[in-house]
């Protein structure tokens, strides 16, 4: 599998490690009311779709960037690759 890194271009998937669902970026507010239940969901519950899935990948053997990769889990087709930093910044974080 080739991952088209937004900065470095096509890279072998061997250079990456896989973390899982990209929703891990959306860490809940630990000080909010009902944080315990929200954190339980955040920590333990994952969707496992057969089809399009947004995932976090780490370019461990490269520039050490975290990527958000939208991938079809049935065909391994990669639909989009973004720097996780840019995804977070679009949400108004890490500015």
């Amino acid at each position, binding site marked *: 599998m080739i991952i088209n890194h937004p*900065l*470095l271009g096509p890279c*072998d998937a*061997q*250079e990456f490690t896989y973390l899982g669902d990209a929703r891990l970026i959306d860490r809940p507010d630990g000080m909010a009311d009902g944080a315990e239940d929200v954190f339980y969901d955040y920590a333990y519950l994952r969707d496992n779709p057969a089809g399009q899935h947004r995932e976090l990948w780490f370019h*461990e*053997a*490269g*520039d*050490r*960037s975290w990527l958000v990769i939208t991938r079809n889990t049935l065909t391994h087709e990669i639909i989009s690759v973004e*720097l996780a*930093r840019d995804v977070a910044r679009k949400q108004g974080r*890490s*500015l």
Partner: protein
Amino acid sequence: MHDLAPLTALGSSAPQSDTIGPVTITENPDMALVSVAARLGQDAACTTALARILGTSAPDVAQFVQGPTLAAFWSAPHCWMVTGPDDPQSDLSTRLKADLPHMASVTDQSGGWVRFDMQGDGLGALFERLCNLDMARMAQGGARRTVIDHLGCFVLCHGGGVTVYGPRSGARSLHDALITAARSVF
């Protein structure tokens, strides 16, 4: 304490050099290596200041640049490695930290890495066996981090050949990988 004899990463008192076919692989312990990571929101200021220090523009993505005395390569977004002659009288990281006030995290990395300078024809064929970088497309001035023999290494292409930085703790393993690959090619 001051009578201790310095050893190179390969454990000798003098840097090791091996010539295999047309390629010469030389350990180079005389270069300091310092990482520079721009602080949040200081990207542009740090890039400008680094260019002034280097005497040439700061390296762009996956680039290596050589200035009059210092060289630098890109390691990650808004992170660079700066390398220059190791001078005990004037520590490179101290100088960089003074020249990049409040805009970057500056860390001396010299003791963590081993540097091998490789010269000669046929380096492309050699690196095809060592890593999955496309050296034919990696023109002069290219810099990438990759894996060589399970070790995370920086590979820099420049006018003098190719330089490999690898973890000092794995210096002998990396050296063995380079030598073994060279023998298999030539």
